């Protein structure tokens, strides 16, 4: 039982963590929590299955095309649902615009792809039981993504520009950074990370249009637990969420496990409103 909790919990947790990082990547350059995040991960599974299984392309070609597709959806999100409402960020109109786009994506997926879960192919064909690739693949994808992001943010000029905008948008623009282009790039990057979450977790979650809403929800929990904009917090929060959820599944059953997860979520937020790894910001009084 313990092995099953660890395998399944870490796998689901890695997917939640990647979705959390997707939230953070979009948030860092726009201060917008986009509801299209879960749909990007859903599309990672659906497009992955479409390219590799239905169209018969190879795994690598399928992965690349899936990530391109998700990146494009990320860019569309920026143009359609984020840019028009950025001027009135304090009115939180992005809630409505990103939610509307997310629902559109979900409905189109339901109509074009179908409302039943579709199979996702075995990508490598390695492992069985608790060592099956469907369990370790999301964890590996999460680790590689984190390493890639660390490299991007610490070693490349573009990554540092992202950080600059994330730290102080106005100062970054004053220094001549192309804020708008960088924001578009960050949404494309978020699309890619969301696509990786869905593609690597495809064997576990299947190619299912309803995964978007689920991942929107469970992907937000690690962001809130770990602190808004904090990727390390999202990873720890995501993995902890996956393990706790799976343990609750074993101990109290499916429906009650969701209750347990959200009870814990509320308790943590009551104790640390800024998240476990977040830093409370100074307030001008």
């Amino acid at each position, binding site marked *: 039982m313990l092995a*099953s909790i660890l395998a399944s919990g870490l796998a689901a947790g890695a997917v939640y963590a990647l979705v959390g990082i997707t939230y953070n990547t979009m948030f860092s350059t726009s201060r917008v929590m986009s509801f299209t995040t879960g749909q990007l991960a859903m599309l990672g599974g659906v497009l992955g299955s479409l390219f590799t299984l239905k169209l018969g392309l190879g795994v690598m070609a399928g992965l690349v095309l899936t990530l391109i597709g998700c990146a494009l959806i990320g860019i569309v999100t920026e143009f359609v649902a984020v840019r028009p409402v950025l001027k009135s960020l304090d009115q939180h109109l992005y809630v409505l615009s990103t939610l509307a786009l997310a629902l559109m994506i979900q409905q189109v997926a339901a109509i074009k792809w179908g409302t*039943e879960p579709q199979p996702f192919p075995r990508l490598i064909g390695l492992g069985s039981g608790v060592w099956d690739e469907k369990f370790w693949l999301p964890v590996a994808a999460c680790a590689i993504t984190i390493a890639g992001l660390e490299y991007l943010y610490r070693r490349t000029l573009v990554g540092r520009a992202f950080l600059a905008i994330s730290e102080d948008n106005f100062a970054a623009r004053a220094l001549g950074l192309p804020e708008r282009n960088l924001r578009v790039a960050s949404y494309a990057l978020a699309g890619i990370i969301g696509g990786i979450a869905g593609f690597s977790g495809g064997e576990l979650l299947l190619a299912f249009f*309803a995964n978007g809403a689920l991942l929107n929800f469970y992907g937000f929990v690690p962001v809130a637990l770990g602190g808004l904009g904090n990727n390390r917090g999202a990873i720890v929060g995501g993995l902890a969420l996956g393990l706790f959820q799976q343990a609750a599944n074993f101990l109290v059953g499916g429906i009650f496990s969701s209750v347990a997860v959200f009870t814990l979520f509320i308790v943590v937020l009551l104790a640390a409103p800024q998240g476990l790894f977040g830093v409370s910001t100074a307030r001008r009084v």
Partner: protein
Amino acid sequence: MAISRRDVLLGSAGALGATSFSFPMPALADSEPIKIGCLAAMTGPSSAPTLGFNRGVAFAVDAINAAGGVKGRKIEIVMRDTQGDPSKAVNATQEMISQVKVHGIWGPLNSGEALATTPIMGRAKMPNIHPCVVETLIDPAKYPNAFRMAPSNSQWDDAVRNYCLNILKAKKIAVIGDTTGYGVTALGASVAAFKKDGAEVVYQANIDATQPDVSPDMLRARNAGAEAIVVWSVTTGMDARMFNTRATMGWDVPFVGHPSMSSGEIAGLVEKPENWKKVYAIGYKSCSYDASGKLPAKSEELVARLTRAKIALSDTLLWWIAGGIDAVELFAKAVEISGSTDGPGIIAYLNSLDKYPGYFGDYTFTPTQHNGYPTDEVVMSEASTAKNGTFALAPGYS
């Protein structure tokens, strides 16, 4: 003889009078087509059954009209695409009743829409035949116009319970549903009925259809000693996950339950084809083939007719097509026997049916019983044996 203007006027008036009174015109109602409204989700997520039903409807209408219609009156189908949306179904129903003035309505074809349209049709006393499973849709006191020509959910439940207790001889049952309204309701009713029949329900759970790992529930069911798992879920993903988990656990417990377990999509979702064995989904005698691969004689005849008419069977279910044919033929027969398209006449005819031989089943309606499908026609099928919209009869039936 000179013809005066007065003579011409008198003559004209006489001629007009003669045409008006001496030679009666046939009543318009005797020649106008019989209009059957069809509320069908032709597009959208729940369109699969509709596509099958519509093939049967079109087949029956073509056959009746080609044979001269009903007492010389052609049948005209007034089709509206509801897209599976109850609000669109309501609008279409009102249009059919007040503007198109149809003589009867077939559908809606799913319970969600029917829950919204049934009271409207009831108020208009519109003859209505539908195949939806929700119990409350049929109430002859409230809706004397509504007739169900497919099994209700409790008839499905009866058939599943009969198979588990009397054929599989299982006494310890696990009942699993999904977390939809349907899954929760069906699970509750099933558990209560099993307990009433003296079976021990050793495990019950509702599982979220998106839950990626169902091994916790399967382990608990096994530890509780379940001898059969009854499934009430419309989600093929959840079904397939349970089949795969059963195989991983090395457990050979049978699954019995909802027809979704026989959906063709499961073939792609199970890790190995053998994971789909020992799964028995609800089916119908008329659409089940025996060990020699033969359907009942009447169904064989229907398949032959459909094949001659080049109606595709491989991507749908035979009962959907047969149900569509039966619905149209019931309306046609009602008009023929009652002699008119008046609603009360059609309803009175339907209320008088005793084992009316349809292709899908033999229907019986009375003024107080509008669930027309016989429960003993509901059987279990081997879920993985789909062949031209039919399934192999599950083991144990004589």
